[in-house]
């Protein structure tokens, strides 16, 4: 009560939607991991000498090297006297010049159009065309401060009540918790559809139907979110699965949100990335007229430029009136980070064969992707060798999401400290082995099952250490609670 009487803004009158927002990736496990790191710095003895943070999909933080070409261009646009510096290749300089010519006053310090620099939007459209073999209109491309920013701007359009019922948004379970947090913030109903672990985390249309039919009593379903490749689950959807999803969305009159930020992270031999736009277009009428927003980012793939907050949204078949209002609403935030836009430009417009930087670029890109492929397999093989563990193939993205079975005693021990069993397990792992993962309950899972998400991002040598520690911890844990 002291808080209430003293403060004009307090826990009782704060926006109730903000109050409930949770984001497990940066939740209590990470907070504790940071505390432990500080304790280690202070010389406190632990059963380990470092904390390995496998909680967040941040490549550079785990030692991944930036792509030289990207960084050269960012340096050039930031400090134009570098155009006279011979260490920068001509193809980098040429791209930097083009970016600067799209900036008012020739400076990246100027505001850009709210939708982003026109030439970059055009480059994005060309990238999409090359990728899909289908035309892309640059005027349907909006540059954003990361994909998250773009997703929020689209979801925001649906904040609306109809007959007293909130908008419902279908999200996959397990899901990337940014979605649940955003839906809470926007006071929209989460229609949670379970992915099928027994089918490599595919989408089961019967399950989609079940969840939407149940949800109709409580909300007005408007949107279907699909994450492909999947986070945390790592599946790459087959063409057939995507077609079935599109047909379902058409039947249920749902606006499709395709989160495709991991489109460059595909490892499995039998997997291939198909964009929702491509499939939808190739399916012809009536599907090719459906409303779709697709998202891509600089944060993942082989570039890993998370901090730069570069991303784009392609909106397909949006009602022109709505699109006008969507664009207008964007102007209130002035513009996305210009360096983020510049970074995105280098990604959608990389060096072509014959260009000076091509060899180095290809080598760096393939090194990163091959290494990720190797690590994906390493992690899955390791987990599948642990007692009580089963881990689906990581076909794509940057994470593994193994299921593990816990002895009854462990579940009881968790209950005693008021923790969900996978939270209990994750905390024990952190305190005893110094490895930080995110418990499956933060992403959602079938009741009675336990999972955690780990990234595959520590470099190979560190990953080996991490998996060894994990194995040792797990053996001990199982023995303790047998």
């Amino acid at each position: 009560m002291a808080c209430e009487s003293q403060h004009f803004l307090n826990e009782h009158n704060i926006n109730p939607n903000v109050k409930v927002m949770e984001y497990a990736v940066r939740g209590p496990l990470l907070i504790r991991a940071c505390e432990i790191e500080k304790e280690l710095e202070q010389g406190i003895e632990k059963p380990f000498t470092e904390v390995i943070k496998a909680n967040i999909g941040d490549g550079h933080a785990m030692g991944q090297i930036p792509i030289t070409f990207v960084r050269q261009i960012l340096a050039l646009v930031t400090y134009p006297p570098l155009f006279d510096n011979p260490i920068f290749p001509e193809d980098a300089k040429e791209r930097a010049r083009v970016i600067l010519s799209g900036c008012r006053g020739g400076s990246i310090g100027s505001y850009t159009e709210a939708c982003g620099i026109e030439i970059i939007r055009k480059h994005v459209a060309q990238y999409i065309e090359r990728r899909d073999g289908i035309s892309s209109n640059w005027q349907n491309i909006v540059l954003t401060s990361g994909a998250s920013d773009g997703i929020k701007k689209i979801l925001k359009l649906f904040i609306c009540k109809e007959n007293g019922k909130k908008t419902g948004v279908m999200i996959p379970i397990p899901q990337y918790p940014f979605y649940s947090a955003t839906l809470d913030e926007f006071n929209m109903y989460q229609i949670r559809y379970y992915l099928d672990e027994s089918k490599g985390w595919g989408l089961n249309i019967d399950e989609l139907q079940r969840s939407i039919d149940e949800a109709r009593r409580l909300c007005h379903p408007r949107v279907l979110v699909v994450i492909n490749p999947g986070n945390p689950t790592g599946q790459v959807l087959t063409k057939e699965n995507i077609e079935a999803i599109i047909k379902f969305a058409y039947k249920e009159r749902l606006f499709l949100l395709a989160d495709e930020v991991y489109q460059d992270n595909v490892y499995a031999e039998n997997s291939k990335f198909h964009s929702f736009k491509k499939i939808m277009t190739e399916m012809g009428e009536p599907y090719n007229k459906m409303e779709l927003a697709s998202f891509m980012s600089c944060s993942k793939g082989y570039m890993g430029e998370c901090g730069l907050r570069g991303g784009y949204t392609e909106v397909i078949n949006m009602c022109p009136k709505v699109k006008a209002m969507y664009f207008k609403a964007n102007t209130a935030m002035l513009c996305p980070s210009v360096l983020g836009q510049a970074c995105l430009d280098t990604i959608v417009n990389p060096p072509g064969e014959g260009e000076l930087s091509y060899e180095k670029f290809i080598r760096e890109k393939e090194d990163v992707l091959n290494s990720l492929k190797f690590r994906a397999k390493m992690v899955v093989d390791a987990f599948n060798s642990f007692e009580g563990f089963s881990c689906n193939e990581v076909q794509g993205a940057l994470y593994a999401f193994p299921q593990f079975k816990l002895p009854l005693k462990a579940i009881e021990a968790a209950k005693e400290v008021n923790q969900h069993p996978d939270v209990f397990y994750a905390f024990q792992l952190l305190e005893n082995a110094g490895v930080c993962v995110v418990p499956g309950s933060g992403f959602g899972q079938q009741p009675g099952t336990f999972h955690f998400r780990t990234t595959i991002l520590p470099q190979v040598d560190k990953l080996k250490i991490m998996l060894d520690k994990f194995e040792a911890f797990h053996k001990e844990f199982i023995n303790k609670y047998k």
Partner: protein
Amino acid sequence: MVVISYLKLFQPRSRGFQLQARLCTMATEHQHFLTSDNMNPNIRKMDYPVHGPLVVRAGQLEKELKNGVKKPFKEILKLDIGDCHAMGQLPITFVRQVMAMVFYPPLLDDPRFPDDTKERAQTILNACKGGSIGSYTDATGLEIIRKHAAEFIEKRDGIPCNWENVTLYGGATDGIKKILKLFVNETNGKRAGVMIPIPQYPVYSTTLDEFGLHQIRYYLDEDQNWGVNIEEMQRTIDEAKKVCNPKVLVIINPGNPTGQVFTRKNIEEIIQFAYKENLYILADEVYQDNIYSETSKFYSFKKVLTEMGEPYVNMELASFMSCSKGYVGECGFRAGITEILNMCPKVQAMFYKANTAMLCPPSTGQACIEPFIRPPEKGEPSYDLFIKEKEDILNSLKVRAKLIVETFNSFEGITCNEVQGAMYAFPRIRLPPKVIETAKNRNQSPDEFYASEVLENTGICIVPGEAYGQVPGTYHFRTTTLLPLDKMKIMLERLEAFHREFMDRYR
């Protein structure tokens, strides 16, 4: 099949323009799952902030000029947006050298970069995970930069600053929106209300509309150089209480579009008012480095509030700074700093947690803050060049602010308050009855009509006062003070000639 039947420009509304695309087919309408009828009603109602239809028209004219279409002018002079670099202001060398090295660390070995730039760059890189600006940062921003920002604020105010209350954002606008969002709530069937100055920076009104917060509009006093009149504030809040729960008071100091720098006394009165009415203060102080008038001085709300002692020293306050204005002008970097004072600790924890879902503000913007708050000191290699560049810019802004005000005051029917700070002039224009009538016949407000005539005849793009709000029956326009001096002189000559001819035409 979709056919756009016509584009209706300049349709007047009580608060500004509305651009409407009319589609003369219903066939497409019924196919869409998301339509203007079932979309977020708050977004549907949102007005344009600064980039209104006149700016769109200016863009069209630019394209026409490029295509060789003949006009009574050879170029468009854009006086609509507070973007220094767009108008030819040069970046500060020190800032750009630091940032180049942050992006491309091999440059740290280049002897052409001075040591002080390398020190700043290394400080930033050491703070980044994996030593890369490409990593996510904490949602509250890089710790070392928050600490340096706290030191900067302490130095500015002479009052301690706790770095844990300082957070970084993707521009001040981002921070302001995140704070305002905390107040979205209904109590006893009434929405929360936010007091905003009129004239105001339209991002406020737009944001309040988007969030469903009630706008409590208090008029600034043009006769008192746009100062705050406490009786006027009282009047508006008393009226507003019937329809909303007033929660927040927004103050822009130095003012946008009005250019005043509040006196210390005025700030104290505002604080006392906010205390009496239980209001959380949002102090938008992004123009704190843009002070031109000899008699003006920037006082931060934090400083004044703290020095007033009890009970004011415990009031809740959020103050905003940015790298977009001042002398750095790095709008595109999206770098903002917020200091939160006396926030309820539980609320602060929830606020910080809510922000983690967006991962972090742009790391490049955060990095840009470092050379801004830790510029070269005397004795450091970059100092002389830095000081010269900074002073050149600020002196030039001062000269231009004075020139523009003097010139406007010499026009028939135009009076302009002193531009004490910020980057804009907001002159008042007394229009002859014939103009008012003509505007009415065209379905435009008189200042919209004036501004569009200015654009079509001179190529000068100004923004009508209606976009910012003004006392009914008065007309204004906003222009920036950012054109380079030589261009500004040309602009003022052209505008003077047009204005004379316009006033004669409608006498």
